[in-house]
C-alpha cells in the first residue's frame, strides 16, 4: 500500500508576524518498494515534507495517508495511528547526534523496545540491523561515542532499521562524510531496497547521488512540487534546474558539453557507466568516420 500526500500545506508559527509558509498544495504518492529521491534547495520544504510523512508534525491543511489511513485523523484510535507512523522510519540529518546509550547494542535496541519487543527480541533485531548497515558485531559492546563519524552514523541508521520500517526516509544521509563513506552508505541503502524490499525516500541536494540510485525524483522549490519523473526526464530540464540553483549530475554535464562541441552523443544519461559507453561509441564512430575520409 502506498504512502500518499494529499494537497498538503504547512505553515510555521501560524498567525504571528514570524509565520512562514513551508509547503503549499503538495500532492504525491510513493509506492511500496520504490526508491524515491527528493531534491531541492535549502528552504524548499523538503525537510518539512518528510517530517510530515512520518507523522512528527501535522499538516496545516490536507492529509497524509499511510495504507489509506489518515495518520492525523483524531477519530482513528491513538495506538493504531502510532503503529502506522512507526512503519515510516526516519533517519535525520546528522543522526549520530541522537545517540545516548552506553553501548552500541543498547542504543540500537531503543527503538525495538519502544515498539514493545522484549530484551531478547530487541537484541536480535539490533544485531540484524547491525549486519544490514555493515557494522561488525565486535562493536556491539563499545560506547557509540568512541566510534568514528561514519561508524556512528551507521549505528544511528541501524537504530531506525531495527524497528523494521516499511518505508525508510533518509535526510541527507551522506552529509559530512568522506567520499568512501558516502559510497558505502548509499550502496547499503540501495541494498536494503533491492534485497529487503524497503521503500526508500532519499532527501538530498546532491544530484549525482539521487540520479544514480532513485527510480523517481521529486524536485521541490519554494514549498511546491516543481517537477516529478525518472532521473532522465528530470535532468532533461537542465536549464530550469540550474536556474533553481540545483544543477545536473556531472556526467550529464559532460555529455551536454560534448554535444555542444559537435559530438553525436545522447544527453539524457545520468549513470557513469552508461555515459562511458555513450562517449566511447561516439568516439569510435568519429574515428571510423575519419578513416573513411
Amino acid at each position, binding site marked *: 500500500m502506498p504512502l500518499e500526500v494529499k494537497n498538503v500545506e504547512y505553515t510555521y508559527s501560524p498567525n504571528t508576524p514570524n509565520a512562514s509558509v513551508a509547503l503549499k498544495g503538495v500532492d504525491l504518492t510513493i509506492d511500496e518498494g520504490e526508491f524515491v529521491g527528493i531534491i531541492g534547495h535549502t528552504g524548499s520544504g523538503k525537510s518539512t515534507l518528510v517530517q510530515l510523512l*512520518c507523522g512528527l508534525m501535522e499538516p496545516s491543511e490536507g492529509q497524509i495517508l499511510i495504507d489509506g489511513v489518515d495518520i492525523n485523523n483524531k477519530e482513528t484510535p491513538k495506538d493504531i495511528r502510532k503503529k502506522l507512523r512507526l512503519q515510516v522510519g526516519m533517519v*535525520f540529518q546528522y543522526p549520530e*547526534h*541522537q545517540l545516548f546509550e552506553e553501548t552500541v547494542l543498547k542504543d540500537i535496541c*531503543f*527503538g525495538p523496545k*519502544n515498539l514493545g519487543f522484549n530484551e531478547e527480541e530487541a537484541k536480535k533485531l539490533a544485531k540484524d540491523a547491525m549486519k544490514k548497515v555493515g557494522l561488525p558485531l565486535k562493536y556491539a559492546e563499545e560506547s557509540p561515542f568512541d566510534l568514528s563519524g561514519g561508524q556512528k552514523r551507521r549505528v544511528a541508521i541501524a537504530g531506525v532499521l531495527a524497528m523494521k520500517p516499511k518505508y525508510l526516509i533518509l535526510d541527507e544521509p551522506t552529509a559530512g562524510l568522506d567520499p568512501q563513506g558516502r559510497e558505502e552508505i548509499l550502496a547499503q541503502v540501495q541494498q536494503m531496497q533491492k534485497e529487503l524490499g524497503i521503500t526508500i525516500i532519499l532527501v538530498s541536494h546532491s544530484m549525482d547521488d539521487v540520479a544514480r540510485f532513485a527510480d523517481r525524483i521529486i524536485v521541490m522549490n519554494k514549498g511546491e512540487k516543481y517537477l516529478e519523473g525518472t532521473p532522465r526526464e528530470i535532468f532533461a530540464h537542465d536549464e530550469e534546474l540550474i536556474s533553481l540553483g540545483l544543477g545536473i549530475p556531472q556526467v550529464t554535464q559532460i555529455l551536454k558539453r560534448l554535444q555542444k562541441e559537435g559530438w553525436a552523443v545522447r544527453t539524457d544519461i545520468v549513470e557513469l557507466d552508461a555515459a562511458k559507453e555513450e562517449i566511447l561509441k561516439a568516439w569510435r564512430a568519429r574515428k571510423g568516420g575519419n578513416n573513411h575520409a
Partner: protein
Amino acid sequence: MLRDVTIGQYLPGNSLLHRLDPRSKINGVLFFMISLFVINNMVGYWLMVISAVGMILLSRIPLKYFLKGIKPLLLIIILTVILQALMTPGEIIWQWKFLHVTKEGLIQALFMGTRLVLLVSITSLLTLTTTPIVLTEGIEKMLNPFKVIGVPAHELAMMMTIALRFIPTLIEETDKIMKAQAARGADFESGNLIKRVNALIPILVPLFLSALKRAEDLATAMEARGYHGGEGRTRLKELHFAGKDYGAFGMAVILLLAAIATRVLF
C-alpha cells in the same frame, strides 16, 4: 513543539518604542517599577494602569503576547491575591471558621494583583520591543561607570549575549533530538513520574554533549578571531541617544514625580 516559548521573545516592529535607545527603555522600566512601589492609593494605581496601557498601545503589540507572558506567573499572582485578602486585618466582611476576608484585605489584594500584572507586562514590553543583542549592549553601557569598583561590565554583557544567542539554538537542537527520538518510538507524554523522567535521558544526553561541543567550538572560534575581552573593542553599531530618548527620559521622570505626588496629595 518548543517553538512557542515566549521568554525574552522579540517581536519585530517599527513603533516608537521599537526605535528607542535600549538605555532609555531600561531606564523607563526601572522608573516605572520604582513608581509602582511608591504609589499606595487608587489614584496612583489608575495613573500606573493608564500609563502602562498607553505604552502597550504605543508599541502596537497585540495584547495576547502580554497575556502569554502573565500565564506562567498566574499561580503566583493568584496565591498572592488570596493571601493578601485573607491576612490583612481590618473591617470583616466575610467569615468562615478561622478564615476571614476584610475590606482592607480586598483592596490590598486588588492592588497587589495589579502591581504584579503591571510588573510582568512592562518587562515583557521591554523584551518584546528590543532585540536581546541591543538589550545587552544597553546594559553594558549602563554598567560601564561601575567598572571603577570592579564590575566586569563587558564580560557580563558578553556572557548574557552568548547565553541569549544560544537559547534559540538549543531550543532548535532539543526540538530536533525530541523528533529524532520520537521517530524511534520514544514516548514523552504518558506514564508515571519515574517513567517520564527516564524518558528525558535520550534527550538530555545528546543535548548536553552538543552544548559542550558548541561551547568549546565557540571559544576556539572567538580566540581564533582575536577576541581578548572588552579592552579597546569597538562596535559595528554605536548606540545613539536621540531627541526621542531625552523625551522618554523626561516622561519617566514625570511619571515618578506624579507617583510621588499621588502619595503625598491623596
